């Protein structure tokens, strides 16, 4: 189980990541994340949507309403250029943090170039 703070912090890059593969709608995004995390990350379903709303207002995703075969209205999200750039920045930050932590965790710390 991942802590709440981390869930909150990671939601943004996770969503952007899922959308990197193509446009998607809310329900599917949640399912994908559940799959990929192997059950480690479980969001309250409703909480996803405000985040998507924020991403949209920050211009990182674009939305379009589509009607499915069963006459259901769905809002589809896709990454914008700014979104892709943001994803890269986020990932860089996560990786660098990860590396520092890994190095410090090692009992024989060796200084190495990054």
């Amino acid at each position, binding site marked *: 189980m991942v802590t709440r703070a981390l869930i909150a912090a990671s939601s943004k890059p996770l969503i952007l990541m899922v959308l990197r593969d193509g446009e998607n*709608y*809310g*329900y599917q995004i*949640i399912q994908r994340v559940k799959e990929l995390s192997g059950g480690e990350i479980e969001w*309250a*379903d*409703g*909480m996803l*949507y*405000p*985040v998507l*709303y*924020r991403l949209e*207002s920050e211009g990182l995703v674009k939305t379009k309403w589509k009607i499915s075969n069963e006459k*259901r*209205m*769905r*809002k589809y999200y896709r990454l914008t250029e700014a979104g892709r750039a943001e994803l890269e920045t986020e990932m860089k930050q996560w990786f660098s943090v990860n590396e520092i932590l890994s190095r410090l965790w090692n009992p024989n710390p060796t200084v190495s170039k990054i």
Partner: protein
Amino acid sequence: MFNLEKAIREWRKELRKNEALEDGFITELEGHLRDAIERQLEQGKNEEEAFYYSIKSFGDYNLIGGEYHKTKSRRINKKPPWQVSKWMPTMLAHYIKVYKRNLLRNKVSSFINITGLALGLASCILITIWILDEFSYDRFHINAERIFGVVDDINIDGQKISIVNTPAPLAAALIEELPEVSAASRYQKPFEENMLKYGDKCFYEKKLVYVDASFLEFLTFPLIRGYNKSALSDPNSIVISESTAKKYFGDENPIGKILLLDNKHDLMITGVFANVPHNSTLQFDILVPYEKFEFTRGLNWFSNSPQTLLQLKENVSAADVEKKIRKLIQSKQKGGIGDTYSLLPIKDFHFSVYFEGKGRMTSIYIFSVIAFFILFIACTNFMNLSIISSAERSKEIGLRKVVGSTRKSIAFQFLGEYTLLVVCSLLIALIIAALCLPLFNTLFDKNLRFINFLGWNTLFAMLGIVMFTGIVGGIYPAVILSSLKPAVIFKQINVFKIKKISFRKLLVVFQFFLSIILILIMSVIYSQLDYIKTKDLGMDKEQIMVIELRGGAAGKYEVFKNNLTGSPSITDISGSSHLPIRMRSGGEVSWQGKLTDDKTRINIASVDYDYCKTMKIDMLEGSDFSEKTLTENADAVLINEEMLKIMGHKTAINEILTFGNPRPFRIIGVMKNYHYLPLSMKIGPLILCNFKGNAFKAYTPGYVLIKIKQKDISGTIDLIKEKWQKVYEYMPFQYSFLDEEFGAAYKDDTRLGNIISVFAVIAIFISGLGLFGLASFTVLQRKKEIAIRKVLGSSIIGITKLLFKEYFNMALIANVIAWPIGYYIATKWLEDYAYKTTVGIKVFAIAVIFTFIIIIISVGYQSLKAAYTNPVKNIKYE
């Protein structure tokens, strides 16, 4: 049966409650929910289970909404609206700013509103003070619940008469024989005025009362000099009021000084009491021990004279004591009827029939109703004008709604504004009331002061009035305004539907109705007063000076008369036993042919021989008294037409009447009927004896009547005073004029007329204000219509007529409804008068004219303004 669609609908409704969840969000969330439910159905759950499972994993709606809100407002720590504390000081400042701005922008209508309401409130306040005062009578006595008066209901000729006179020995007997009575006192008003003298100061005193020593002990009339317990214990003591002390002694201390009473008794002043407050039924200026009361004829158990006041011990039943008193009196009267006596609590004195208080309760009802009328008119005005001035703010309301204000908060905003308006009006009303209090006191013959009424009760009453008026006046507009739809407002559709206009019209008609009734009553009262003033009495009442002969003054009547005869400024001198307009006194009379069971009351008075000449009374047949006739026929009498009628004879000259001791008298003349009593009484049979005839011992000269020439009246008065003092050295010279005395009988009605007209004026003024405001609204509403009419060629007059028509109709309806009611009330009031004016066309005409004048003034201004406006201004597309 679980219905999935229904469940989802309910779920949507739940979400809608949160303000931050817009419709778009909810649609998206619903899509998600359905997908989740589908998933669950695939996995084999039934619909109900699927639904509830999916919902569970959704999360807290408020949190979701909060997140949405955070994004929308872009500030991390801003709270969503439903989490902010309800008491928002920031909004309050805003509302006040808006309120002030509106007040200043609509100066005219705000002024009208506040003025009208302030007037209405001021009237209410004054009347309330009056009513409170009326209820405060006699409450100031300590232990007032234990203080009673003994009253008597007797039967004379089938008529029940309520009196306060009791047997003189009763008070002492009560103390001796009834242990329940802790104190008792006699209270005797003398039959004539008393004369008090100190040095060269000599006055007739009307308010002297004979009491027992205990009077000052159990009744609360505090002495500012001297001691209540002992002040009257000495039989030669006297206690006077502050103002009396000032009159005789200026600023000196009167204690110990001697006053001479009726030239007979030297009494020492042992106490000075604070002036008796106006709200005491017992009114007096001087108290003298009862022993000094000289009326030996009546001081036994068989004739009633003084009032008896008593105080009971604690926890004693008044009913029991009453029974005991009746038994006591019965036993002392040896076979008399004790049952006619009862105990009257002092708190009930003011409204009881024993103290002429029967009409007072009615007055209170009437004035409460009038106060309520006026307040109601003011409130309806307030309502109307509020709607109007708020209609001009419909854009503001629309905007507020669009930006997110709830209907409730708009309603409260306006309710708050109106309450604030009412508070302003109330403050102004208090100032108006305070300024008008002196005038009010004159009108109602009272001495009210504001200070007496400041207290928690009044504060609560004021608060109550404010809340009542604010809510009543404000709730209708608040509700209406808050229900306006922004779309309607901004599309310039006529915001107020016809339905509401009718309600306002109803209010205006009602206002008219009330005002008209007041006008009708006022006209009738004044009409009657005018009738009284101008009616021919059958006798002369102008320029006749009346001097009352008190004490033993009657003895020197002839001397005085001779002294005055021959003065060039004096036309006639005569005298009578009674006041010429109040000859109500009688006795048993019999004549030949009288039926034994004829109990008609016959008035008898005695006059000087030249009475009819002085008073210009005409004779029908026979001859008047003359100086000569009297020396020969001292038993001559005059009768009036009514008497002749009663006797049933065709002619009465030389008929014999028997009355007095009894003695025979001869009729020598018949007078034409004239009014010797107030106009409220029918002219009854009258017998005039002459002074020489000496019919009754009590019918000696009581009044000197002097007819004066019109020129130099004050000079003539001085002359008469001089002659009086020559004859009557020590007696003060006091006079009045007959027409004043005549008018005094109608003092109450004159006062009533004045009071009603003041209220009528107030009611009309407020209605007029209301009309003015309403007219401006109508004009505003119809400005496009008016503009178009102008363009199509309607003249100024035509447009004005258009607007007037509406109001004339309302006035007509109000008149039609008000007339029958007003007529009924007026005729009821006139019933009290035996001789009255007719309720004729004139009265109704006045009402109609008044209403039209009001309409013309209030509506006229607006109509003319509208008629003269440039039509282009109103038709231009906004």
